[in-house]
């Protein structure tokens, strides 16, 4: 097997491995500073930060043997200049020295950094990127202490609105061209270019054109400095004040892996999380807007229609009591349960199980598809994150929900804004007793007889099956009234969470919503109605599903976490062929 020596240590690589030396070094858990290189895009080697020394062993042409020096070591023919490791291919026997083992390399990197910083404004204290800035981090680790350039810095455009979502500060730009390459190679909108030259250049769209690429905000993530910022997020929160929780994009069927960034129990922003099987490093801009749903217009405490059409807030006890009494005054045949592609597998399962036990066998759901909305990349026609999941649980797909509703007397709906999205009309629900388990205020919630607030994806651990049949799960990121970050092992703590108490002025009690997971509501209802069922944590619910539904065989949270999701189709297919 071919070998390569990095800082005196021998590594092997496969024949035909086309990783550059930099990527190989990073994959070994070692480090070389870099800016312009990005693993998903071409390597133009323009920042010159990733310098290493490299050489190849000298071979005798006749014998093909390595030539040895007087100490019996292989003779190395060094490249005459330092090489950019990002664009340097690996060769058998190659010897590489990084800043770890060679002072010249460390010095070269330091000098490059000094050049890169000549016109950089060094405004880290007011820069959004601070705390997650490769330029800041690498200057701290590898850069010079000061600068020999004492001339006036070059001024460039600031606060340029490149498009509806991205704002440019050209002075901070180090012209790595990552953003330009993103629009050329990944989103293929070709909307950005570098203009001018030398110390005056910066990226921008063509004159009179907007940078409105539906993936534009990914450039903010990959910009290695604070030049590109999110117009929505800028100046809202410091990186180190937030905690970061893995989750899934709920605005489409792709199951894009994301991180939710929380401060004081508000989701401040959503960024993509790498998953090579699903979304690579990217996500659509639309998915990032979902954070608003998690914070705003939330339903807190149950509400009930008492007189006429006016709802008023009520207690949990009263809500459950009303729920149970309504059921008890009817027969199971009168009940229609509408599952939701917008809710998780566990929630849909819990509903089905409890009502099934009571005797209901009318379980329907309406897919939320917008034909033609998809782009073959990360945006799908499917507007919901769990259409496949509801189907696999046995909910029957219905294209005419209003006639189903007209045949029922009690309609129980799970987290789905059916009236808002035009599947049902207000008239459909007239004369029925309608119950909605909902996360947000919406038209649907406004007209039903009983509204029960449930946790959203940002508040519970639950699983969602994407359009390709891949099951992936979320973690709780936001506390509800009944959750405590410091006691829940699934929850992360940011600096403010760790050191804050309820009496600190950075802790806002109102940010916690008075809601509970749907399965806990089912527990209370079952308990009140004397049904033999008790759900534990969502992790245990998934175990139960895996044990009872062949489509979910061998699925567990542990496997989902270790394998970054499980493709249900392939595991089934394997079984079929085995």
């Amino acid at each position: 097997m071919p070998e390569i020596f990095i800082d005196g240590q021998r590594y092997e690589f496969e024949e035909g491995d086309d990783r550059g030396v930099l990527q190989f070094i990073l994959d070994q858990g070692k480090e070389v500073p870099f800016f312009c290189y990005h693993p998903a895009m071409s390597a133009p080697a323009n920042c010159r930060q990733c310098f290493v020394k490299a050489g190849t062993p000298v071979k005798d042409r006749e014998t093909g043997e390595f030539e040895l020096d007087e100490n019996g070591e292989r003779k190395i023919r060094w490249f005459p200049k330092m090489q950019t490791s990002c664009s340097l291919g690996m060769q058998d026997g190659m010897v590489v020295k990084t800043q770890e083992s060679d002072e010249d390399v460390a010095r070269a990197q330091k000098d490059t950094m000094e050049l890169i910083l000549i016109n950089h404004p060094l405004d880290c204290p007011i820069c959004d990127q601070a705390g997650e800035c490769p330029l800041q981090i690498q200057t701290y680790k590898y850069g010079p202490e000061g600068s020999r350039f004492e001339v006036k810095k070059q001024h460039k455009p600031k606060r340029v609105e490149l498009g509806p979502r991205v704002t440019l500060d050209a002075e901070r730009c180090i012209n790595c061209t990552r953003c330009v390459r993103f629009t050329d190679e990944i989103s293929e909108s070709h909307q950005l270019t570098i203009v001018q030259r030398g110390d005056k250049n910066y990226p921008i769209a063509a004159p009179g054109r907007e940078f409105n690429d539906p993936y534009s905000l990914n450039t903010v993530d990959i910009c290695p400095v604070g030049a590109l910022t999110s117009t929505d997020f800028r100046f809202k929160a410091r990186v180190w004040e937030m905690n970061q929780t893995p989750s899934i994009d709920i605005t489409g069927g792709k199951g894009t892996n994301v991180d939710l960034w929380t401060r004081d129990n508000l989701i401040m922003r959503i960024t993509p999380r790498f998953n090579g099987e699903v979304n690579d490093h990217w996500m659509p801009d639309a998915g990032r807007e979902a954070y608003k749903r998690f914070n705003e217009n939330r339903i807190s405490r149950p509400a009930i229609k008492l007189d006429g059409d006016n709802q008023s807030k009520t207690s949990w006890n009263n809500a459950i009591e009303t729920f149970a009494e309504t059921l008890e005054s009817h027969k199971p045949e009168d009940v229609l349960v509408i599952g939701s592609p917008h809710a998780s597998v566990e929630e849909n399962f819990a509903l089905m199980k409890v009502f099934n036990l009571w005797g209901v066998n009318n379980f329907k759901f309406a897919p939320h598809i917008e034909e033609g909305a998809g782009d073959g990349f990360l945006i799908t026609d499917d507007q919901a994150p769990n259409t496949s999941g509801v189907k696999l649980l046995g909910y029957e797909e219905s294209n005419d929900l209003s006639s189903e509703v007209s045949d029922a007397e009690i309609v129980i709906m799970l987290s789905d804004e059916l009236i808002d999205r035009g599947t049902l009309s207000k008239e459909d629900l007239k004369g029925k007793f309608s119950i909605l388990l909902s996360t947000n205020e919406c038209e649907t919630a406004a007209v039903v007889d009983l509204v029960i607030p449930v946790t959203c994806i940002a508040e519970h651990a639950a699983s969602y099956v994407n359009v390709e049949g891949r099951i992936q799960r979320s973690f709780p990121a936001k506390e509800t009234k009944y959750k405590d970050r410091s006691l829940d092992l699934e929850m992360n703590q940011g600096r403010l969470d760790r050191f804050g108490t309820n009496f600190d002025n950075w802790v806002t009690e109102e940010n916690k919503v008075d809601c509970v997971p749907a399965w806990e509501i089912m527990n209370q209802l079952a308990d009140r109605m004397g049904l033999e069922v008790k759900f534990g944590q969502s992790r245990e619910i998934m175990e139960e599903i895996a044990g009872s539904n062949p489509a979910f065989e061998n699925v567990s949270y542990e496997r989902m976490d270790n394998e970054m999701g499980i493709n249900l189709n392939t595991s089934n297919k394997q079984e079929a062929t085995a």
Partner: protein
Amino acid sequence: MEETYEFTKEDLEEIEGIKAKFPEVMPATLPTLWVAQRRFGHVEPPVQRLVAETLGLPESHVHGVATFYTQYYKERKGKYVLDVCTTTSCQLCGGYKMLHYLEDKLGIKAGETTEDGMFSIQSVECLGACGYAPMMQITNDVYVNNLTEEKLDKVIDSLKEGEMPEFESVGMPLLENINDK
């Protein structure tokens, strides 16, 4: 209303010829921008767009290329564009002095155009004639070398008459002559 621009049939034929010279379209950007500038006198954004459409390339790419070179006029210029070199050699030999002399003489700053539309001044990077510093180029054409204030006066006077100065060719020292020394 934004002016609309169109290439003539001859222009389009020429552009086809340019495209045929390269395996890909992208390298045709530079010569096509020249065709456009020759036709319209400038490559303002609508012209850049026309070039992009004609070549089937992203507008952003054409814009990037056009802004890289001072030789492409991203806005309308005077009849004569005086590109005064201010890079190292010229700078050391008085490039800025020449530039400022011109600015004072014509009453405009670098980057501006005289009101009568006759002259524009630009401060540009090295034009590869460092041996004859300080120097300038007129409208992407004739080089005027070894500038002095008197020489500039003369050049401006003759340009006002509508006369381009002669191209001053400065020969390479011949090999024999070097060997003789």
